[in-house]
């Protein structure tokens, strides 16, 4: 690894771990480093690279992934994470385990969850070792969230938002809460005829009534301020139409087939 890369790397490390880190500076450092890594043939390692260099590359990418979250740049996180996959899976035997591996994998899981990519979520989960699912706090958190979301225990999800095992997890909390609110709202529309405003706010985890009312108008609910109730507009019962065309097509199909048999 060239010397200037090393200096850049130590600069980045120092800047990133300082309490008031300059995200912009980190960003420029990272893009310089990435260029350097490509020139050194380390970003996509081939043949038999030096394990030390690999470990440094891995750390740079890990910092990049965390930086993306802090800079609220999810696509960039996605890129860093897929580049890291090589280091976590293929160089598993060569490299010492990274302390940041599980936090990042957990973050990736939450990202999939907030984007509602449940199938990808489970595929990723299968690739993780068994112990991690049970014991690792970083992995357990998204796993529990998914389970509660599937069952409908939304209050537990709400309760768990403060229990995030790492600072970066909180970035996803907001979008997760948005997802949950929409879920609860659609359940509510089906389950209730009307709800007192106060209770609706509690169910949807709104602190102020105003937030609730904007949310309600977005979803097209009728808010009766006098009696302080929300009336859910029921979707009119779908008219039972006879699907004539389909039935004709089916009958003609039967006739044709029967003709062939007889």
């Amino acid at each position, binding site marked *: 690894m060239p010397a200037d890369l090393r200096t850049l790397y130590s600069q980045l490390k120092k800047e990133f771990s300082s309490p008031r880190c300059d995200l912009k500076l980190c960003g420029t450092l990272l893009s310089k480093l990435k260029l350097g890594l490509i020139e050194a043939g380390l970003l996509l390692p081939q043949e038999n690279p030096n394990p030390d260099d690999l470990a440094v590359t891995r750390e740079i990418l890990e910092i990049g992934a965390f930086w993306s979250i802090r800079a609220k740049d999810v696509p960039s996180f996605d890129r860093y994470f897929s580049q890291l996959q090589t280091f976590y899976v293929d160089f598993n035997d060569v490299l010492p385990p990274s302390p940041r591996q599980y936090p990042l994998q957990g973050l990736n899981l939450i990202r999939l969850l907030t984007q509602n990519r449940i199938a990808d979520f*489970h595929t990723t989960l299968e690739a993780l070792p068994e112990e991690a699912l049970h014991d690792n706090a970083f992995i357990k958190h998204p796993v529990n969230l998914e389970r509660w979301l599937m069952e409908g225990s939304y209050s537990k999800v709400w309760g768990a938002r403060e229990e995030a095992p790492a600072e970066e997890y909180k970035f996803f909390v907001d979008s997760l809460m948005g997802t949950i609110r929409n879920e609860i709202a659609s359940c509510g529309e089906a389950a209730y005829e009307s709800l007192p405003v106060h*209770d609706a706010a509690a169910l949807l985890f709104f602190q102020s009534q105003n937030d609730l009312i904007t949310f309600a108008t977005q979803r097209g609910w009728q808010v009766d301020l006098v009696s302080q109730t929300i009336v859910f507009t029921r979707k009119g019962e779908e008219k039972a139409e006879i699907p004539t065309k389909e039935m004709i097509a*089916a009958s003609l199909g039967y006739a044709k087939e029967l003709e062939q048999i007889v």
Partner: protein
Amino acid sequence: MAATKDKETPEVAETAKATPPPPPPKPTPTAEIKANLLLIERAVSTLEPRFTQRVLRTLTSLRKKLTAQVLNQAVNEAYVRDSPAKKALLAYIPTSAEMDIDPPSKTSTTSPNSTSSEPLPESDVYLRLLIILHLIDLDAHPKATELAHETVDKIHALNRRSLDSIAAKVYFYLGRLYEIADKVGEIRPLLLAAQRTASLRRDDDCQATLINLLLSNYLSANLYSQADKLVSKTTFPTSAGNTQLARYLYYLGRIRAVQLSYTEAHTHLQQAIRRASPARTAPGFWQTVHKLFIIVELLMGDIPERGLFRQPVLKKALVPYLQIVRAVRTGDLSQFQSALSVHAEQFTRDKTYTLILRLRHNVIKTGVRALSIAYARISLRDICVKLHLDSEEDAEYIVGKAIRDDVIDARVDHAKGWMVSARRGEGVDGVYATAEPRENFQKRIGFCLDLHNQSVKAMRYPLNAHRKELASVEAAREREKELAKEIVEGDLEDDDDDTGGPMADF
């Protein structure tokens, strides 16, 4: 032990190819190998792959009879006296007392085609395959792997279509050897390269085997996304044998189940079960597929048939699964949890643990449905107690979600804190008022018609069988002609009579 048994599965499935062996009196293994070599030669000279197929079909029964002596003799007979290839091969055969040749050093490499009277490459590879099998049975895995590698290199250099089906077997056992050695990661590049070559050469046998090997390779390392990509980038050869197809469908079902496409997974697994060889010949595969099948069925919200658990082959293997099914059927969350924790190890070994964890909310759903049917009105507090939920708040959300997902037809009265069930399935509002019965009817008729058409297509017409019929048709036609003639003649006679009358009068 059970783990190894499960790993054995593909092999067991492989053996299933064996249709009842030919009836003639049992020949000695040496004679059998000799006959097989002759068959292979015939296959090569007549370009008829079915002779090779016939040889491979006896592989399992022959495998049990292999000894060092038999192999030694076979190799000695097949090769000319001083061929280097022969020496190299003999080196792999474990030394036994009867051996009269000093085993030469193992490092000597084979140089094929050195003499003009070398056996055909096909026969050579077949003999090598037999030796590999024997070495596997003797637990001499490193040696077997070495030989298998050498053989694969040889196959690769040869590019002969008549070699394909034997080559597929060699690849299979090479993959199996790495599986035994637990080094599946190392063989992946070789398999991928071989797969590419096979598809370029349109070598269907190898392609089917290699795709399956790669899938099992990925799945054993839990690399589902890679497996999925492999499936999407390759087409499984349609001419592949039933056993390979069954395995492929099983892997496909497994991938889809993890990706939550349960309906698709269900179809694939069902096909795999139908295509698989009977339970008696391949119990391992049968059990593994059924385990996954049951879980997928549960995840879809169906309850598997009770009869399944009574089948002799499955009865014992499915006990833990039966308990899970019971818990889901009754919607008893605590029973589910206890069954899960008791059999956790078994489920982990079967790689169904994470799938079973997903069943938790199915259990809750079934529970809520049972309550909604039983009670016209029930308080959220009681729901919470009956389903062992953590809080009333949760119960409210869960019921809400169940209503939205159309699991139950009910309303929640928030102020009074209870759930009111709507009466369902009665009168005009029942399921018969919807389009569902029509759709189901259409689906079933469609299936029957398809089945009929497929069977018509699959019918075989023996050559020249219609000749006989033709002859009889000809005879019939002849008779008809005669009849027609007679009638015409009769008519004419009549005419004569009719016209003849007045004429006579003249």
